[in-house]
Structure formats: C-alpha cells, structure tokens
C-alpha cells in the first residue's frame, strides 16, 4: 500500500510538472516554431496575392504537397482512434498511459490536415460555396461532412476522459498558476467532484463515444481515399483504396504516436510510466499494420499488373523503374519491410530501435501519399508528354509551417493540459491492487 501511494504521488507530480515549470528551452522551441509559422504565413500571403501560380501546381498536376499533407495528417489522426478507442473497447489495460497523447494527436492532426484543404484553394473564400451549393453526390461534400464530424467527435472524445484530470489540475494548481489558467481549469472541469453519479454519467458518455468514433474514423479516411478513387485516373482505379488508406492511416498514426511518446518521455521524464513495454506493444502493432500494408500493396499491384490494361504500363513504369522508383522502393523497403524486420529481431526491440522504425514509417508514409497524388495526375489523358511537378519555395514553406503548426499545438497542449490520463491510470491501478496485481509501471521493467 505504501508503494502504491507513492506511485500515485509520483504520477501526479510527473503530470503536474510540465504545467508548473517552464524551462528556457521551451521558449526556444516555441520561438522557433512560431518563426517557421510566420514564414509560412508570409508564403501563404504571397500565394493569396499572386495566386496558385507561385506554386508548382498547374492545370494537369493540380494536387501536390498540400494534398499530400492533407492526406498524411488525416492519416496520423487515426492514432487516437486506434490506440484509444479500439484498445479501450478491447479493454487492453496497457494503453492508459498513452491514450491522452494519442487522442491529442488525433485532434491536432485533424486541424492541421483540414487547414491544407483550404491552403490548396486558389480562392479560399470559395470554400463557402461547398456549403451554399454542395451536392451530396460530390466527394468534396463527403469530405467536409466526414472531417467535420470526426473533428467534433475527436475533440469530444479527447475532452470527456480529461474532465477528471482537469478537475485534478483545478484542485492542485488553482490559484498557484496564472489567473487565466486557474479559470480555464475551473471552466473545463465542469464542477467535477468525482461523485459516483458523475462517474457513471461520464462513463456512459465515454462508452458511447469510444464506439461511435471508430466507424467515424474509418469513414473519414475512406472518404479521403475516395477523393482519389472516384476520379477517373488509371493509377487510382482501385476498389481497395478505402481499406488501403485506412490501414495506412492507422499505420502512420501509430508511428507518430511512438515518436511523440519518445520525445515527451525524454523531455518530461515520463520513464516510469511510459516504459519499454509500451513501445514494444505499439511496435508490434505497427509491424502488424506494416504486414497489412504489404498485403494491400501486393493485392493492388499484382491484380493491376497481371491484367495490365491500357495505361497500366505508364503507371507501373514510373513507379517501379522510372521517375518515382526511388520513392516507391524507399516506401516499400524502408517503410514496410525494414520496420517488420526491426520488430522481429529481439535485440532491436529497444526504444531507440522502435523509434527508428517509426521515423522510417512516417517518412515512408509521407512519401507514399506524395507519389499517390502526383503519379496519378502525371499520367497524360491525351497523347501528351507526361506532366511534371516540382514544388516551389512557397509550397515547401507552407508545408514546413504545417509541421510547425502541428508541433506548436502539441507543445502548447502539454504545457497546459494533463499529458497522461491520471484518473484512468489511478482507477486502473486500484483495480489491479484489488486483484493483487503489480502496478503497471513497476511490473514491466
């Protein structure tokens, strides 16, 4: 009992720590991120002023880095759904220390991704026409509906389990931090006192959301894939695109979660709670998803390559041997096969090994989104030379700004909000204690 109380105290202190003290490095990081975002805003101003002609996008290749970023970020937003909702439904108890981060990645990645749809518009004001003249037959409208629904649901799903932790912050930090923050915790904690009625009501809300958010998440990335698959392009004529994109989304979501966990663990000394075991479990999940992706690729290319309909040759040539071969083989070998190999060698299942695999996966998935977008549009529909696309400094700047925006939101979040689900972890610890099981943090080391 003694060790348990101290475990709980350590957990609480660790979670409170980022909100209490701010180092100089923190300001440096925020400053750098803000500078990148400011530069991106300037680039966006140039784009608004002069039009999309300042980008490499032209009539034939009209989607490039921006749509790549959109698909990539919508993809990693699946981290929260999988880790949090699916594992919650499956009652996998090891998930509790990582759920909060996963859920937060979901919300932030969605905001970043949705932003890039607007960035891709030469006339962003015309986005309103989707509301005014949207047709339900249009994949664009499906996207707007699905992303809005998913964003709302994921914010709610992030917020609901955080209420008790916010109350904990309110009680422990109230009056000791800046006024606006005390007020914020008070507001967001919505009078949570931890009564049994409140617990059961909150539990009902979470139960609904954890089930509802799974089909919503699947629908979102399916619809994103349909933006491609519903367009008459040889490279995108695929019935498995929906499945393929959802699998890729979960895959890159896990990788992003692993990277973020490793960073936060280092910066905020979460070693006791985020153990090697957590990384290994997520690593195994990632390797399993890599297998699924590998299978999807084989299924996709073998069926198309066996029939080899007119037009397939161009697609296969540019992907397998010509212009896009470096990207494709990096994705296939570096992003799918090597991570599986890394996870199958016991000696490599260290945190650094798993994080390297995750970095490879994220890079590969970004590259994959890029070549799916560009190779599909590149193939000529008339007897032309293939179109070419090279992003300009404006696109690279705004892309960098997108990553910075994502990183900034994460950085600010961990400063203000509880980064671990203290309430759930403690609750689960109580269950374990009752069952005379060792504490999760201690058991696995």
């Amino acid at each position, binding site marked *: 009992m003694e060790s348990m109380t101290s475990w709980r105290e350590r957990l609480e202190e660790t979670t409170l720590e980022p909100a209490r003290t701010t180092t100089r490095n923190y300001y440096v990081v925020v400053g750098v991120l803000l500078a990148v975002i400011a530069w991106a805003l300037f680039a966006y101003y140039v784009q608004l002023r002069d039009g999309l002609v300042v980008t490499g996008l032209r009539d034939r290749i009209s989607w490039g880095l921006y749509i790549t970023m959109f698909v990539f970020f919508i993809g990693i937003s699946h981290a929260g759904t999988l880790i949090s909702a699916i594992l919650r439904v499956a009652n996998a108890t090891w998930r509790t220390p990582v759920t909060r981060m996963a859920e937060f990645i979901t919300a932030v990645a969605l905001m970043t991704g949705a932003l890039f749809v607007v960035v891709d518009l030469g006339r962003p004001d015309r986005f309103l026409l*989707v*509301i*005014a*003249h*949207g*047709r*339900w*037959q249009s994949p664009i*409208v499906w996207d*707007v*509906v699905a992303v*809005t*629904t998913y964003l*709302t*649901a994921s914010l*709610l799903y992030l*917020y*609901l389990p955080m*209420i008790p932790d916010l109350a904990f912050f309110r009680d422990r930090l*109230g*009056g000791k931090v800046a*006024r606006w923050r*005390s*007020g914020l915790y*008070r*507001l*967001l904690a*919505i*009078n*949570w*006192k931890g*009564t049994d*009625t*409140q617990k059961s*009501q*909150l539990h*009902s*809300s979470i139960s*609904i*959301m954890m089930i*509802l958010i799974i*089909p*919503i998440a699947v629908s979102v990335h399916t619809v994103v894939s349909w933006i491609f698959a519903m367009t008459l392009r040889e490279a995108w004529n695929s019935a498995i695109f929906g499945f393929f994109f959802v699998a890729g989304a979960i895959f890159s979501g896990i990788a992003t979660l692993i990277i973020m966990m490793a960073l936060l663990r280092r910066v905020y000394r979460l070693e006791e709670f985020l153990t090697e075991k957590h990384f290994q479990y997520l690593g195994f999940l990632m390797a399993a998803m890599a297998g699924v992706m590998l299978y999807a690729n084989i299924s996709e290319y073998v069926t198309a390559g066996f029939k080899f309909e007119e037009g397939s040759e161009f697609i296969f040539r540019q992907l397998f041997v010509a212009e896009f071969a470096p990207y494709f083989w990096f994705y296939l070998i570096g992003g799918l096969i090597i991570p599986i190999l890394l996870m199958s060698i016991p000696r490599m299942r260290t945190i650094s090994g798993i994080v390297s695999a995750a970095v490879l996966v994220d890079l590969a998935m970004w590259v994959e989104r890029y070549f799916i977008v560009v190779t599909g549009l590149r193939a000529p529909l008339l007897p032309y030379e293939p179109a070419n696309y090279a992003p300009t400094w404006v696109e690279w700047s705004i892309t960098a700004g997108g990553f910075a925006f994502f990183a900034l939101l994460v950085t600010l979040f961990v400063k203000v909000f509880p980064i671990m689900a203290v309430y759930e972890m403690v609750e689960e610890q109580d269950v374990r204690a009752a069952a005379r099981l060792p504490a999760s943090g201690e058991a696995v080391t």
Partner: protein
Amino acid sequence: MMRRFFTVTLAAAMAIGALPGVAGAAHLVIEASGPQEVIVGEELEIGASVHLADGTPVPGATVVFFADSFFAGVSGEIRLGAVVTNGLGVATFPLVFSVRGVHRVRLEVGDGTETQQAGLTIGVNNGPQIVASEAGVEIPGLGSWLVTLVIAVVWAIMIVAASWMMRVSRTHREEDDDTTTPEDEQSPNGRRRMGRINVAAIATGVMVLLAVGLVAVLIRSPDTHHNLDPEGYSRSPVAYLDAAYVYPGPGLVDDAVLTGDAVADGRAQFLKLGCAGCHGIDAQGAASARSPVFATRQWLGTVVRTGLPGGMPAYAASDLSDADLDTIHAFLLEARDVLADEVPVGNGGSAPISTTTTTVAGAAATPGFADVQGILQPNCSSCHGTFGGWSAADYDSVLNSGDNGPAVIPGDPEGSILVQKLLGTQTFGSLMPPAGSLSDSDIRVIVDWIAAGAAR
C-alpha cells in the same frame, strides 16, 4: 407494246401518287391522311383509307408504307412496314420523325392485278431535345435521404453523449450547491462568474448547430444545382438530331459583322472560315501552316479551291464565293503590310541582295549543291515535289523541272527563276516561300552557287 404501256401507266400513277391526297385509277382508291406539320420527336399516325371508286371500303387490303430517308450520304426510300385494312378499309401506321425537314411518305396498296399509291408530305420542324442520356442506374429508395439519415443519426448519438456531459456538471450543483471552493473565496466576483459558464452546455450547443448545418447542407443539396430540371432548362444537352443547333464550324465571327469594307470583311471571313485556326489570327503563319500573305489572288484562288496535301482544305464556291475570296485577299495584302512593319518579312526594307557582286568568289567559299539542298529541302520540298511543278528533289529537278522552264541558269542568278522567286523579282506568281522570304544568308548561298556555275 403492252409492256411499254404498263410502264407509262405506272409512271403516271406514280406521278399522281407523288401528289398529296387522293390517288386512284380503275376501281381501287387509296387515300392518305396525316398531319401536315409536326415537330421532331412527335408521335404521329399515318392513315390509309382504301375503298372502291364508288366509296365501298375495302377491308383486308395490305397497305405498305414507305418513307424517304438518308443515311451516311445515301438517300432513298425505305419500307416502313405493312398494315392490313380493317373493316372500314382503314390502316394506320405510327411514325416518329427524328430529323427536321420536309418528309415524304408513300403508301401502296395492291390487289394482285393493280397497284395504287398515295403520298403525303409532312413538314417536320425543330423540336425539343429528343435524345438525352440517362446517366447512372436508378436504384429505388437510394438517395440523398439515406446519407442525410446516417449523418443525422451519428450526430444525434454524439449530442446524446455530450448532453450526458452536461448532466455531469448539473449533478454536482444539485448535490453540493453550497460548497465554495478556495478559489471562490480568493476572488469571489471573477471566479464565480466564470464558474457559471457551462462549458458542457456551450459545447453541446455548438454541436447541435454544426449538426443542423451539416444536415441542412445535405438536405438542400439536391436543389442546389437545379437538377430538378426546372422548366425550360436542361442541364444535359446531349444530342440534337435536328438543325436547331447546327455545328457552326470553327469560325469566330458571324455574317452580321460584315461591314462592306473589303479588308474588314476579308478578316471576318478569314476568321469565320477557320483560316486563322492554322494560319494565325493575323495571317502571320504558325507551326501548322505558313503565312498566306504573299499569295497572289490567282494563287489564292487555286489553293483555296483545290486544297493542299498536308491539311489545307478545299473550299467550294458554295461555301466561299469569289467575292468573299477577293475580300480575303484584300485582308491578306493589308496583313502583309502590317507584318512588314512589325517583323522584317523577306528583305523588304533591308538592302536588296546583289546578285552580281560575288559572281567570282573564292573557290574555297563557293557553296556546293549540298549546301543549296540543305536550304531547299526544309523550305521548299513540303510543297514542291509533292504538288507538281518545280521539284527540289535532286540536282536535275532543281535545275530543270517546273512548268516555266529551267529554274536555274548556271552562272546567271538574276535570270534564274529560282532566285527571282526568292527575291520577289519574278514576273509571275508570288514570292517564295509563301511564309516569308528565306534569310539573306540562305539566299546568298543560292545566289553564289548559281553564280559560280551551279555545280553538282
């Protein structure tokens, strides 16, 4: 004799039959009836009344219906079908015309020994679109309502979850309403007010608004693009099988712009007939066709009427009258002057190339036939050699072929038709190439080659 008589009779009968209305001879009479005017796509009935000369109806007679028709440039009569007359001696045949114009229907009835005919002329006018593609497969019950329903249900569940979150905050108030937290004591006014803002309620309210908005977009969506087909508006004009929307050709202007000014009208014709599509909007020439500004009126007439291999179409006098061709020529002359002001075309304006100064050139610098061929092949052979007349194919043809005698007189550049044509000093025809003179240096190579004896 008998045979001839029969033929004449038949011809007479047919001549009568060609007239609308009653036709008859001997005792069998057939009358045709039907509308005089219909529109394209309208269903109509051709009626045939067969009776004897005294008015007695003839039941059981077979009436054959024919109509004139054309397909792929071939016109003739087609047999539509045959109908047996009823007890009143009447046979009807349903018909739909899909092509505008004056159509003739012919009816024929015979009793084995004689054949009688009647004819009917029907004017078919423009009508509405009669062929529209039905895109997609209509699956009963499937529609926007299903998507709307799914989205509405999802949002309803989410709002229920959010409303339970509202209960969380309310429950506490009811349970210990009197409790004051330490913060309240520290700052009774500000904190307390903030505490009254119910985040859960606000969030739920925002969600309700979003849900209503999204569902409204979906519900409204079938009406946003007039795809309910309002009156007089069709989104998909797929095929018009009449002359209401004749293909206007590649021209850019209408007859209405003709002014009477030869140059302006010539330009209008030049645009309207599609000349500008290949020859450039200012007749300046392009990759697809040369500039025609140096063409003489006679040459223009020849080329325009007969066309050229390689794409220049032939225009018949019915499409382009000689008078219009005159205006086009006037425009081309004007265009020639305009172009001469903008870009130096040929050697107009620059010093004329002397044909005499380099008559005796250093042997080393004297160009050979290969050099000349290098200039003639790309510039001349696309027409010459393929289109008759002078040919630039080989040495002999360069020197001697052509309708106007030898093109090259060795040692006499000025007297050579080839040089005259290149310099514009010719006594007939126009400067060559029609797209504009060769460069001065190219012409000099040819002049020098001829001056030096036009060696092989």
